């Protein structure tokens, strides 16, 4: 027992061993990062090739000649600007609605006691479990009769009230100590007050997560827009991408170029929001 503690202390205090540990972690991280990035390197290199060079053997990581024109070609071949605008509109509106309504509902599920809570919550999770392909048809018929078919609002209402956001926020709220709410209640704060003044500020990291996820999922959604949006003025980037895949030929080089372009906005959102993972709630004066 004593030796165990002793050796641990040595390990903790020995700066050489610590450094070696650090180095190992770094090597591991870099190796993992390379594994993660290799496919992207291939995507970039393919986006600068001719169509028939993409799958040519032996493969070349660096294209023979760089076909930068692919990146201007994609904007000419399909109305990508319109697609980007539509996607941005849907993603932004959905993200705002989703974050607001689900953090509201999640508070009730996490911190309030009311009749039917668990059943209702299971209903939410239950719908996540049903694949969309199964209820797509009834949903479509309903949306059509509401006159939402082939409008951007169809995509908004479809995604803004998903059960996923409620579930995610509920889990985060549950990790916030209930004592905090009770103390606030004793101080005379209403439930709305607790939500606004205590829960929201404490769940910055969770909200950032939800914003990122909602934005990314909406941005990358394919099946939804494919079914609900028909006219070219309404299409989204992901649907537009598939226009490079045709019945009897596919322009893989253009798909790669366009999907690299569509990666940019989402990456920016992620970069902007990820600082919230550093300023967590740990520093906001909570007692454990």
């Amino acid at each position, binding site marked *: 027992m004593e030796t165990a503690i002793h050796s641990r202390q040595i390990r903790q205090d020995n700066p050489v061993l610590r450094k070696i540990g650090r180095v190992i972690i770094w090597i591991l991280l870099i190796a993992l990062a390379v594994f993660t990035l290799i496919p992207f390197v291939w995507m970039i290199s393919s986006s600068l090739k001719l169509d028939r060079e993409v*799958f040519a053997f032996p493969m070349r990581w660096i294209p023979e000649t760089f076909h930068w024109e692919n990146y201007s070609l994609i904007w000419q071949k*399909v109305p990508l600007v319109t697609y980007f605008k539509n996607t941005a509109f849907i993603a932004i509106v959905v993200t705002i609605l989703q974050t607001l309504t689900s953090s509201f509902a999640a508070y009730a599920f996490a911190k309030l006691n009311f009749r039917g809570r668990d059943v209702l919550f299971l209903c939410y999770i239950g719908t996540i479990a049903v694949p969309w392909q199964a209820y*797509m048809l009834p949903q479509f018929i309903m949306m*059509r009769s509401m006159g939402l078919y082939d409008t951007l609002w169809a995509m908004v209402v479809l995604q803004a009230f998903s059960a996923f956001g409620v579930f995610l926020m509920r889990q985060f709220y549950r990790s916030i100590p209930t004592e905090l709410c009770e103390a606030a209640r004793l101080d005379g704060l209403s439930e709305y007050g607790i939500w606004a003044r205590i829960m929201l500020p404490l769940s910055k990291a969770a909200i950032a997560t939800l914003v990122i996820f909602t934005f990314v999922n909406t941005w990358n959604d394919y099946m939804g827009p494919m079914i609900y949006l028909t006219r070219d003025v309404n299409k989204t980037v992901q*649907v537009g991408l598939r*226009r490079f*895949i*045709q019945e009897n030929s*596919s322009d893989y080089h253009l798909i790669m170029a366009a999907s690299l372009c569509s990666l940019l906005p989402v990456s920016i959102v992620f970069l902007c929001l990820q600082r919230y993972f550093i300023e967590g709630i740990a520093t906001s004066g909570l007692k454990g």
Partner: protein
Amino acid sequence: MKKMLSVLLAAMLVLLAIPAMAEDQVITVVTWDATTTPYLAAQKEAFEAANPGVKIEYVDVASQDYAVKTTTMLEGGDKSDVYMIKEIDNLINWQAQGFAAPLDTADYDMSGFVGTEANYAVDGVQYAIPFRSDFWVLFYNKDLFDAAGVEYPTNDMTWDQYAELAKKMTNAEKQIYGTHYHTWLSAVANWAVCDGVNTLADKEYSDLLYFYKLYQDLEDSGACMSFADLKAAGLHYSGAFANGNIAMMPMGYWYVSTLIGYNKDGTCNFNWGITAVPHLEGVPAGSSFGNLTGAMINAKSENKDLAWKYVAWLGGPEGAKATASVGARPAWVSEDVAGAMASVEGFPADETSKGALLPSGVAMEWPVAEKVADIKTIVNEEHSMIMAREITPEEGIEEMNERVAELFE
């Protein structure tokens, strides 16, 4: 001042009213790859020129999602006037569901379809008109044959002769493959239906065995790329042949227009030609199989008369000329149309290629039959097992026979 304003207002109203009065009648047509398919543009242009005041508007659906998107649209009560039919099953389903309007073909000449229109008829009533009929031909790279000093393939070749030729053309050192098979069932084993007797829905698949063996022999000898590689890379036959190291390739006629396009934009710059696909001993030369593309009128269309005018035109000789003008093969067959096809700029000028334009018989790739969608799934699943060499061709065919039989128990 007041007067001037009111005059201005009146003028504006008139201006606004003019386009409203002269508004074109619009036919909406649901189709796939609308912006990139040359024949759709050619058809639209020709029809609009022949019918002033009528406009064609395409509703573009991604080709790989055509079935699911169109099904949802129709179930949802979509009112688009015309739906193009990608696979015969589409129409059979839509007819059963009541989405297809019956066509009045009493005064409509269908002789040019040489019987293919029967695939679109249910109980003697026509529900759609074919306008494109692709059949399979053999493409070959003339430059490779010239360089090797081997004679070109002909319109009358047996499969054994073809296999021999493929091996002869193979040159491992120069990475030249004698032939190329795309991963589809249709490219490898569908040939069994060319005799017009066998079909893929006849519940008996031993007739495919010969073609699987032929394929595996070619793959083993290195005369074609392996299925595993093609599948994993998703390597598309269009790029593969255009690379210039493949001597022959059986493929659908639609590839002609792709190749002409490649020659134009410089993607490939070798000479090529087409011949009829090889045949089995005892089956007439020039027998092939193919697929139909057609158009039906939506039962919910509010514009059926006009839609019929368009669909009738599309299938008939005039529409056929428009379709043929860009290298696609119309369903309407005549010397005229074959002439139009051969005169497309970039079409190979030799007699063999021209001869290949008029096949002696075209069987359907998939027939209209009970449970054909289920059979398709089964046969394709076993096909991929045989091709990946998970099972032998004999085992695969036994599985096909057994599983299809189970469907009908």
